């Protein structure tokens, strides 16, 4: 747990980089500090491991006042990853990863085992162990940076735009891998970025900072999008706030509408009835196993026939309950019926997501 208690930082030139900051980073959570340049997000991060000392207030790190612990000791329990990576150019990858273990005096065997394990953990091949940093690509160096920070298994990690220096494709990959890793490791993390989308993706909670080190809002991504505290937050979240909200809500979180579902063996009159009840001019058609085959237009059905004799139009896409409402919206837009049909993993019908379902969630 990291607790900021009324932390203020005023630099010698009078710039205020943190203005009475108070917030808590719960154990095992990843908290993102995000804001425009000059908002003091990096300063806030660096006060945790005392690279910068606060002017006022206290930072409590795992139960102790950070200021009461000698800085080098404090830092060995806090992993640190930065955008420029800062690998030691004169040390091999293995020695870079072994930095903190060797500082705290692990024996060779334990260190070597740990280094080998970490090279695997961050998705590198063991061949890189003996190479020097300049022989690695930017993405590989970033992975080594993460491995080095994790080496002595610190409970806390500080990450300053850790994926900022790589191209967007590698960045997305590193973000995904890191999230997967974090689900296992459950480190307490403060993560700095200027990119609100990265913040939404990575953060369990997000602190939005404004110029002058003012904390505008501290909330989960969902709460932030649902109830932005003020205009600054609204602006910072950007024009697509509602789309971002939808992206965070899984289909499983909403009650899909039952929809007009009939079987191919049903008489056409049954389809007409179901459509009327649902207020549509179409009906969904499934097989005996509730697998959706497509849909029929009610007007096209011959009253004397079964549904299966009508012209059944297939669907291009379905949504499953682990997808987001944003994905459901994509499917809706492409569908001639303006709905997204929800199915389970085996393709069995679960209901339809309609425009009303989405607006109901956003209200």
């Amino acid at each position, binding site marked *: 747990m990291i607790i900021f208690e009324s932390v203020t930082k005023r630099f010698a030139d009078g710039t205020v980089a943190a203005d009475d900051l108070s917030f808590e980073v719960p154990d095992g959570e990843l908290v993102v500090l995000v804001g425009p340049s000059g908002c003091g997000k990096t300063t806030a991060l660096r006060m945790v491991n005392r690279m910068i000392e606060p002017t006022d207030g206290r930072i409590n790190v795992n139960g102790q006042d950070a200021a009461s612990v000698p800085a080098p000791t*404090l830092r060995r329990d806090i992993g640190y990853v930065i955008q420029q990576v*800062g690998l030691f150019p004169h040390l091999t990858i293995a020695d870079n990863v072994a930095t903190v273990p060797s500082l705290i005096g692990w024996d060779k065997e334990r260190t070597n085992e740990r280094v080998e394990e970490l090279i695997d953990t961050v998705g590198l091949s063991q061949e890189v162990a003996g190479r020097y940093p300049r022989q690695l690509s930017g993405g590989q160096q970033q992975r080594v940076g993460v491995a080095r920070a994790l080496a002595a298994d610190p409970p806390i990690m500080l990450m300053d735009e850790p994926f900022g220096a790589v191209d967007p494709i590698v960045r997305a990959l590193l973000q995904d891998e890191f999230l997967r890793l974090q689900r296992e490791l459950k480190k307490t993390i403060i993560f700095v970025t200027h990119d609100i989308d990265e913040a939404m993706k990575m953060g369990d909670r997000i602190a939005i900072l404004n110029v002058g080190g003012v904390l505008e809002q501290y909330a989960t991504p969902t709460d932030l999008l649902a109830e932005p505290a003020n205009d600054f937050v609204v602006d910072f979240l950007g024009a697509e706030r509602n789309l971002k909200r939808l992206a965070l809500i899984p289909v499983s979180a909403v009650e899909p509408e039952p929809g007009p579902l009939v079987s191919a063996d049903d008489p056409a009159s049954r389809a007409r009835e179901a459509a009327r009840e649902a207020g549509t001019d179409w009906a969904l058609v499934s097989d005996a196993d509730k697998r959706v085959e497509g849909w029929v237009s009610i007007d096209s059905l011959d009253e004397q026939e079964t549904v299966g004799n009508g012209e059944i139009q297939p669907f291009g896409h379905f949504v499953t309950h682990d997808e987001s409402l944003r994905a459901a919206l994509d499917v809706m837009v492409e569908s001639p019926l303006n709905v997204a049909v929800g199915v389970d993993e085996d393709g069995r019908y679960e209901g339809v997501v309609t425009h009303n379902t989405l607006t109901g969630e956003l209200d």
Partner: protein
Amino acid sequence: MIFDWAWVADNLGDIWAALAEHIVLTVIPIGLGFLMAFPMALASIRWPGLYSPLLGVAGILFSIPTLALFVVMIPFTGLSKATAIVPLTLYTLLILLRNTVEGLKGVPVHVREAAEAMGYTRTRQLFRIELPLAVPVIVAGLRIATVNTIAYVAITALIGQGGLGNLFMDGFLRQFPTPLIVGLVLSVTLAVTADLGLLGVQRVLTPWQRDPG
């Protein structure tokens, strides 16, 4: 005949002795100079206000003509080795101090900060991270200082030291070119060898700078 091989054969012992003396008069000032410049450089890094004054003093020493320094020294140390070594040492300070400080300053900020954030103590960080990374610039300073010193040593022949400088004096005074040529060739060879040797030392100390292989 401009070059007298017989003279060389007859005086081989003296030639070797001159060369050996030249080497000693180079190595000692470089060694002493580095021993002085290194703590000065560390102090300049620790207290940046010291750097300019130290550099200024080293610069003034560097600009004093050799002969003038000998004249100042002779009343104290006579025509001894010390009279040669002290000025030669002082001349190395400017280059060695400047290159050591610049080498340390040249360590990228993010590398320094990463070391700090990993929990290195100040001293350990200096010796494990910053000095190794400064090696190329420090060795570059040693190379310049060494080549300079090899050239200066010859002048100390004027006070009865001088290594290969004695061969120049001998050739000049007797209007006999052979010793002059021998001295010149040996002194250039010595400078080139020392330079390449130090370059080799640098390559051994900085395996991380070699091309990927």
